């Protein structure tokens, strides 16, 4: 199917002997925002980290099952290529402290040693910063260090950096949990804007945020995918009792 960008079948993830994600099946739709909700420790972060194979850096982590990205089996791809196709933004803004704003955006090119014409790189910088809603704010300070920006701006810089690799999917791991409400609102607007360019998977423990931003919502509990549906359906009439309890604050 053309509108399915990512297909996960029978995914099990273990940390040592502990099962963190069990038998997870899901299909992610192209150019939509899918929120992954659940109480802390439900395996949602682990789940999205397996999607770009970042779990391989965690000692003892092991994933079973198949993940198919645009018809290609993820396990058979080079992990480095996987991470370029599936970008990731983390909880805490993490721009490279030794680089200026300009270089931070194209850090993926610089660090990977991809050589391009200077004018092309500048175009990428402007394009991605514009998409991340940061261009107007930083266009005169492109050669200053990224760490002098505010938290929200730093996070948008990180989003621009991920966009620069032109990923198919962007994984956002609680991208606003370290930000104040106004910066959070900015990022949320940005996420909604971005869905026309990229498919977004948003991990959040903030129910309200999942509601505001997402088109599809999944609810995970104790490593299992409990329910998956449109945001409207999940927020007005969830089918599963556990989802209902979570949304009404009875669990989590």
């Amino acid at each position: 199917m053309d509108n399915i960008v990512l297909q996960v079948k029978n995914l099990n993830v273990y940390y040592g002997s502990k099962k963190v994600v069990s038998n997870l099946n899901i299909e992610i739709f192209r150019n939509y925002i899918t929120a992954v909700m659940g109480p802390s420790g439900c395996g949602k972060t682990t789940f999205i980290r397996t999607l770009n194979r970042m779990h391989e850096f965690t000692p003892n982590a092991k994933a079973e099952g198949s993940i198919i990205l645009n018809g290609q089996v993820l396990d058979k791809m080079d992990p480095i290529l996987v991470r370029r196709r599936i970008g990731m933004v983390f909880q805490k803004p993490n721009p490279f402290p030794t680089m200026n704003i300009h270089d931070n955006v194209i850090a993926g090119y610089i660090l990977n040693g991809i050589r391009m014409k200077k004018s092309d790189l500048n175009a990428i910088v402007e394009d991605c910063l514009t998409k991340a809603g940061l261009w107007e704010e930083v266009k005169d300070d492109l050669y200053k260090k990224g760490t002098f920006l505010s938290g929200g701006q730093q996070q948008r810089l990180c989003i621009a950096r991920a966009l620069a690799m032109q990923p198919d999917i962007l994984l956002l791991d609680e991208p606003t949990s370290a930000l104040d409400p106004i910066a959070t609102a900015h990022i949320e607007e940005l996420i909604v804007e971005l869905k026309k360019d990229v498919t977004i998977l948003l991990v959040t423990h903030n129910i309200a945020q999942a509601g505001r931003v997402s088109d599809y919502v999944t609810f995970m509990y104790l490593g299992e995918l409990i329910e998956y549906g449109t945001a409207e359906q999940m927020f007005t009439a969830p089918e599963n009792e556990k989802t209902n309890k979570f949304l009404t604050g009875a669990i989590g």
Partner: protein
Amino acid sequence: MNNFDTDKHFKFRKLKNKVFKYFLYFLSSLSIIPLILIIVHIFKNGISAININFFTSLPKPVGESGGGILNAIVGTSMLVMIASVMAIPVGISTGVYLNEHRKNRLSYYIQLSAEVLQSIPSIVIGIVAWIWIVLPMGHFSALSGGIALGIMMLPTIIKSTEETLKLIPHSLKEASLALGVPYYKTILKVLLPASLSGIITGILIGIARIAGETAPLLFTAFGNPFLNFSINKPVASLPLLIFNYATSPYDDWHKIAWGASLVLITFIFTLNIFTRLFTKKYKVKF
């Protein structure tokens, strides 16, 4: 009800506070007095020996006046360079390894050895270098001295590299890995640049430490009254020269020893100040 403000007891307590405060001031300033005395003393005795000639000429035989310490300056520079070439790559790599594998057995032993190495008396390191290098080679050499100093420098560099890397948020490494940057490039291009200031500080402190070492050089670099640029031959060094001249019975040599002390102390002092400035200026903000 008691009025505490006019209470006699209260006034006494205030007095006690004050006394204690000045007592602290006094004790803490006590610790810088030896340093000041040493510097003043060396300066007073050494300044008269210092002139251009002192830096550009070789020592003269006993009885002739004048003469300089060029051989020792060159020798110390060579020793520091050899030590750095040996210790910096090994030290940084070890530090990176320790930071990357915090919980495994090998890193536990490496850490332990680094700590033990740091506490081994320098004379012992000198003897070991003598057994390992001087004996097989059959003669004293700058190389053996440099290696002995390098071994002394190693723990400082390992520790400072590891400590600075520890301060770098894990998220930074993840940011790079998530961009598809391979592991080795992540370490070389992201982690090391971000911890550069700490690593360089460690190197400078290490140099400051070995520049003044005498003991390990007694059996290795040995000393040399002539100018030598070969790492295969014995070389002079500042601390060795000071040791030899100061223990000699000649007044002229005593004077040169004072001058050399002044040079050495100034060098180490500048290195320390430079380290401070460097850390302040290039400290990476996360």
